[in-house]
């Protein structure tokens, strides 16, 4: 599969190579496919955890691990390399591995939930992606992890939308989908769609409102909105 153009960007070179200089050596960095991309995301979250804890050691370890994984070679650096060199290399690797056109995917822009399940573990996201594609298309691990990240997100969005359509169909066949209304009458009560399926690009429409009309007290967010789970 390696070397295939992206499904979504066939006219573009989806595997750019950029040069990075570190510790007096030149490295060639290529954009990571889904497997590498998810591992890099995991390291990004390690950096964020280090930042939240203001733990310099944790940040440095995660930055070097990120560089090591992006470059794919032994860096042979003990952390004494000049910071501007490390910093520029990190920025370059970050930008080459950014998700292109990520804003076009509603499932990324309006994620539902926010709390990890109790069975969560480090790197679970990789297992989760492999499971989703194996379940939907019967693909093996190698095939899934060799996708370009934006292809994987696009396909995942379709899988989730299909699954939801199936759930809605099954729900419509069930008695619980109908609520009594009046005498001998039942009203169909559709399932509430996930937040990302409700929101159009651009987010909720903003309207002007008099300050006196704005409610006070706890804000009730739409069901499934990420803010609903914010601490």
């Amino acid at each position, binding site marked *: 599969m390696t070397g295939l153009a992206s499904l979504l960007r066939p006219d573009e070179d989806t595997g750019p190579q950029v040069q990075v200089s570190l510790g007096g050596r030149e490295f060639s960095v290529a954009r990571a496919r889904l497997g590498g991309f998810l591992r890099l995301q995991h390291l990004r979250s390690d950096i*964020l955890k280090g*930042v939240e804890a203001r733990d*310099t050691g944790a940040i*440095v370890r995660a930055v070097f691990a990120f560089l090591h994984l992006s470059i794919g070679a032994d860096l042979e650096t003990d952390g004494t*390399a*000049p*910071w501007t060199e490390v*910093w520029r290399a990190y920025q370059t690797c970050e930008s080459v591995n950014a998700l292109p056109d990520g804003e076009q995917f509603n499932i990324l822009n309006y994620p539902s939930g926010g709390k990890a399940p109790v069975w969560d573990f480090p790197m679970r996201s990789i297992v989760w992606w492999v499971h989703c594609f194996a379940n939907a298309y019967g693909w093996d691990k190698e095939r899934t992890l060799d996708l370009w990240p934006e292809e994987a997100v696009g396909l995942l969005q379709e899988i989730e939308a299909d699954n939801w359509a199936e759930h809605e169909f099954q729900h419509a066949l069930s008695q619980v989908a109908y609520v009594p209304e009046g005498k001998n009458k039942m009203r169909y009560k559709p399932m509430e769609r996930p937040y990302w399926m409700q929101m159009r690009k651009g987010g909720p429409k903003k309207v002007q409102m008099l300050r006196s009309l704005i409610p006070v007290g706890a804000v009730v967010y739409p069901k499934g909105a990420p803010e609903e789970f914010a601490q």
Partner: protein
Amino acid sequence: MTGPQMNLAEAIEAAKIITPYVPVLRQKPGGVEFFSAFLHTLGEDDPSQVIRLLALMEHRDIEEVVRDYHGQPEEFLMALTVGLTANPIAELVEMAWFLGLSKERWANA
């Protein structure tokens, strides 16, 4: 004249010292005003942070820096200038912003 650069861990520690003062510092138009404001704001709040900053830029212990520059304010200022020339504050602030250590950034202020 520029001195050797800090490593990443030292640079992050230096950024933690500098970033709270970014709103004051980036208003200064020239190098002299900037440096003067930097020493005043940082020195008034916690003078030990200026010494710590120099220790980070010279890869040395604070005690060593205090001992070596004791009674030599001109040499201390010169060393600080050399250190800040090799490790530009603007880049340190941008790094801190990119990593999420600070909400303030130097560019497009």
